[in-house]
């Protein structure tokens, strides 16, 4: 017991000695941007892509940035944001859904700081949400997969039944069906964002069931490695994952946050930021489809290019009527389209998907 007290006393005695140095570190007053990350930068996926955007801000604008990795979705995140603001951050990017309420709390305390939350639905005067229309690129990747499959069974390993994931599965399915009406998409839920060995096993389960193209909404390229080990194909996600499995990888829909991050940072610095939500797509270059892999079907490139062009110019919408869910209910009648609100909260799987959402 005494020894612990001792230790404590030592630390207390030493603290003023250190405190002098600490104030120096905090005096800087330049414009900084803070990033709250949900995983490690090295997750090879979601956080890595956001971090690439952070580096773009540093390189293109010469603005200093702060970040912290693996911040839990609790009050902890609010503390991290406050720390960053104390370090001089004038903008905060919070890159996980679970940070939303805590961000709003900190935003109310700091009206002069701009807050950006990735993928939520609550706003305030200085706090907005942003996301990318990943479903566009998912649709294109579905075209490639639909052309490639020989068994007409596509597989999809997905982490959780949340709208962002569901949208991706639906778009992928619609893309595949657009070129291959026979195709089905079988979904396996892993209930884990990042556990590569288990993702690989989930992929094997689908391959053993006859699927020959495996897409994913996870973090690691485990589905591609599983596909390569079994001599079938896969679709990556997050980044261009071609190097992880060059034989198996047909293509990857991926995030390219650079243009949004750089532009919005510039706006905040210039004082022209309008505090609006942002939902950019391929038209803004926030979402991309990676170059097709060497084993992608030859005819795919031309079709993908054509559909991509119509997505960019707005002449084509992924979610348009007639649209049925996989229980046989009509979601959209012929000629109807879906508003952003309905898309953001999407909670059904389209016809052609084998799997269900628990409610």
């Amino acid at each position, binding site marked *: 017991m005494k020894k612990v007290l001792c230790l404590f006393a030592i630390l207390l005695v030493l603290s003023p000695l250190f405190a002098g140095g600490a104030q120096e570190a905090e005096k800087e007053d330049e414009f900084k941007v803070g990033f709250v990350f949900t995983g490690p930068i*090295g997750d*090879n996926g979601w956080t890595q892509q956001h971090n690439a955007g952070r580096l773009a801000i540093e390189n293109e604008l010469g603005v200093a940035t702060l970040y912290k990795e693996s911040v839990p979705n609790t009050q902890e995140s609010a503390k991290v944001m406050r720390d960053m603001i104390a370090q001089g951050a004038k903008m905060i990017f919070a890159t996980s859904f679970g940070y939303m309420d805590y961000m709003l709390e900190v935003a109310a305390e700091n009206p002069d700081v701009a807050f950006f939350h990735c993928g939520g639905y609550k706003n305030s005067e200085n706090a907005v949400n942003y996301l990318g229309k990943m479903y566009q690129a998912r649709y294109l990747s579905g075209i490639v997969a639909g052309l490639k499959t020989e068994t007409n069974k596509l597989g999809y390993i997905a982490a959780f039944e949340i709208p962002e994931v569901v949208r991706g599965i639906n778009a992928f399915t619609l893309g595949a069906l657009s070129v291959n009406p026979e195709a089905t998409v079988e979904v*396996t*839920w892993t209930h884990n964002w990042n556990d*590569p*060995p288990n993702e690989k096993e989930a992929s094997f389960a689908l391959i*053993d069931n006859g699927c020959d193209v495996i897409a994913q909404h996870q973090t690691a390229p485990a589905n591609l490695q599983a596909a390569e080990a079994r001599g079938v194909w896969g679709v990556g996600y997050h980044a261009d994952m071609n190097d992880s499995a060059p034989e198996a990888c047909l293509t990857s829909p991926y995030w390219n946050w650079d243009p949004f991050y750089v532009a919005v940072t510039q706006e905040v610095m210039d004082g022209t930021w309008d505090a609006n939500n942002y939902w950019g797509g391929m038209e803004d270059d926030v979402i991309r489809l990676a170059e097709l892999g060497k084993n992608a079907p030859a005819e795919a490139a031309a079709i993908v290019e054509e559909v991509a062009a119509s997505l960019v110019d707005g002449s084509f919408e992924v979610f348009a009527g007639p649209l049925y869910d996989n229980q046989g209910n009509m979601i959209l009648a012929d000629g109807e389209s879906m508003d952003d609100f309905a898309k953001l909260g999407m909670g059904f799987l389209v016809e052609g998907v084998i799997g269900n959402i628990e409610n």
Partner: protein
Amino acid sequence: MDLNWFVCFLGAAVVAGTPLVLATLGELITEKSGSLNLGVEGMMYMGAIIGFTTGLQTGSPFFAFIGAALAGILGAMIFGFVTITLRANQIVTGLTLTMFGTGFAGFIGTPIIGERAPQKIIDTFVKVKLPLLGDIPVIGEIFFNQDYLVYLTYILIILVGFYLYKSRYGLNGTIVGENPKAADSLGISVIGYRYLHLAMGGALCGLAGGYLSLIYVPSWQDSMIAGRGWIAVALVIFSKWNPYRAYIGALFFGGLNIVGFRLQQFDLPVSTYLLDALPYLMTVIVLVFDSMRSKSRSHAPAGLGTPYFREER
């Protein structure tokens, strides 16, 4: 659910069980001599990263796995120095080793995130069907159509069993774990055997990590081990400190851990979230039934977790 489904599933379970059984064997040997090293997760991380980087540097499967084993030994030696030589508490030191090893791997691994294991290593460890044994129907497909490290694991299980039960050294180590005082009076070096067993255990845990990073996943990711080290600690108890039962336990757990993905295809009237809890619930149930049946004495080495100092009065 036909025969083919079961063969595919069990074949996958063998692979899923391999890193678990390696780590379980490692912890089992360690505990046999009386050290409770809760740093399995940390040693696996150290083995995974060092094995992977060695593989990247040398391109050699052999050196990669030697590197993984050495890294595991390094972790075990830190643990040994702090708990045996400096006599610190084993539980806290083990937990600290887990913290240290996880940080160690993350730190060294940052620049090579997402990098793929060298093609030569991937090619070396493709599935190879063994002659004769591989031709046995069903069994051959499940157990003898695997990669070389799975086969090496079979050999290691037998070696560990032989070492512990049949060799003089293994028996000495067991005596050290059961009753260090008696061992000491028999002239068996308590400190020596505890270090030796720690080193062997560390090597096996390192190999387990290497299996995950070099063969199972084959690329570097931060969350490579994802709690498998803790499962190994549990499996040692589950196995009643018997290497053969350890294999059954690892297969059982490895299989339950992945069966949920395969059961989802059948649209069962059970929440898939509850299927996720299956391996843990089943472990509890099996354990309880086992203890109900035998109401047995504890199988743990009697000296487990307690340090031994000759000089103390």
